[in-house]
């Protein structure tokens, strides 16, 4: 079940700097912890987060085991044209979760 929370302003003026917030529910298990039965809890983290604006990548981040569970990433973009902003989170297994939002630029 996709559990993501993204916040993109619905409308913005041409050239305006807008703040984008993105959060995903993920355990970000480091791989260094030991479970109740004494065996290692396998590593399970999100490795890469990317944001595309009308298909063009405008922001990305590499994530490491020190990042907390449910990572929350906020950044800014310059609103140029109306369109969709897509978000992709890719985990250790190569599986990705996506979310998208639209922005209207006037």
């Amino acid at each position, binding site marked *: *079940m996709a*559990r*993501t*929370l993204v*916040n993109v302003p619905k409308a913005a003026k041409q050239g305006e700097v807008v703040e984008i*917030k993105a*959060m*995903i*529910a993920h*355990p*970000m298990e480091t791989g260094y912890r030991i479970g109740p039965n004494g065996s290692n809890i396998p590593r399970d983290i999100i490795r890469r987060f990317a944001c595309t604006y009308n298909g063009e990548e405008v922001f990305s981040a590499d994530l490491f085991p020190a990042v*907390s*569970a*449910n990572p*929350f990433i*906020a950044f800014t973009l310059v609103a140029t044209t109306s369109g969709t902003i897509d978000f992709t989170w890719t985990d250790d297994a190569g599986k990705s979760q996506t979310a998208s939002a639209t922005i209207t630029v006037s």
Partner: protein
Amino acid sequence: MRALWGLVGMIAAAVCSIAIAAGIEDGEKRSGFDFMTPQTQALQADDMSNPGMLWVLQGEQLWQQAQGRADVACSGCHDDARQTMRGVAARYPAFDAATGRPIDLAGRINSCRAERQQAERLAPESDALLALTAYVTHQSRGMPITPATDARLTPFRDNGRRLFQSRIGQLELSCASCHDDNWGKRLGGSVIPQAHPTGYPLYRLEWQTVGSLQRRLRNCMIGVRAEPFVFGAPELVDLELHLTERARGLLVETPAVRP
């Protein structure tokens, strides 16, 4: 004149002792929110940065999903939670006539699952149970906690108060030792809050996940080196009953964020 001052002193002492016996006075009640740093308060205040909202969103999806052999969703009977569940969590735990005992919201959701949906009970602290509880409680956000006044709850509530005031564990502390007598002071680096259950299920930064009030109660019991009650134990529900009565009038904050 001296006798008069003595009398005033005695009256003042008597008033103080009454105040201590009754716990926290109404005007002094403060949510744990007030004891947090501005940064953590900001995290809770903005729904877009509050990680607890991830569970609320999941709960919203689960609410619409048909479950069990009855193949019916929560919304199949209860319709739109935004209307039907508004204010419900503010008066829980309630009396459950079937078992003759009080039942908390998570317990009610599970009994509804078992009896109406004929589905497997959800495990305590499972994401699905926390999500549904958070979603239902979220509908009461901003409403004052108004515990049920059902007379059948009284003996259980009294037992909850007794447990709250009983010293337990190797450290021989009761809940009241910290949260009634010493709130506002520090225990190590953190401020001791008044322990009002205003925001459960809540996101604790320490847990890095959402947890229930029972998980928090068990944490405290382990903290004083006592044997904690198991999840769903009647004693924990009695404690919840006492805590909601103690927090009467404070606003529901679910999903809250705590350090």
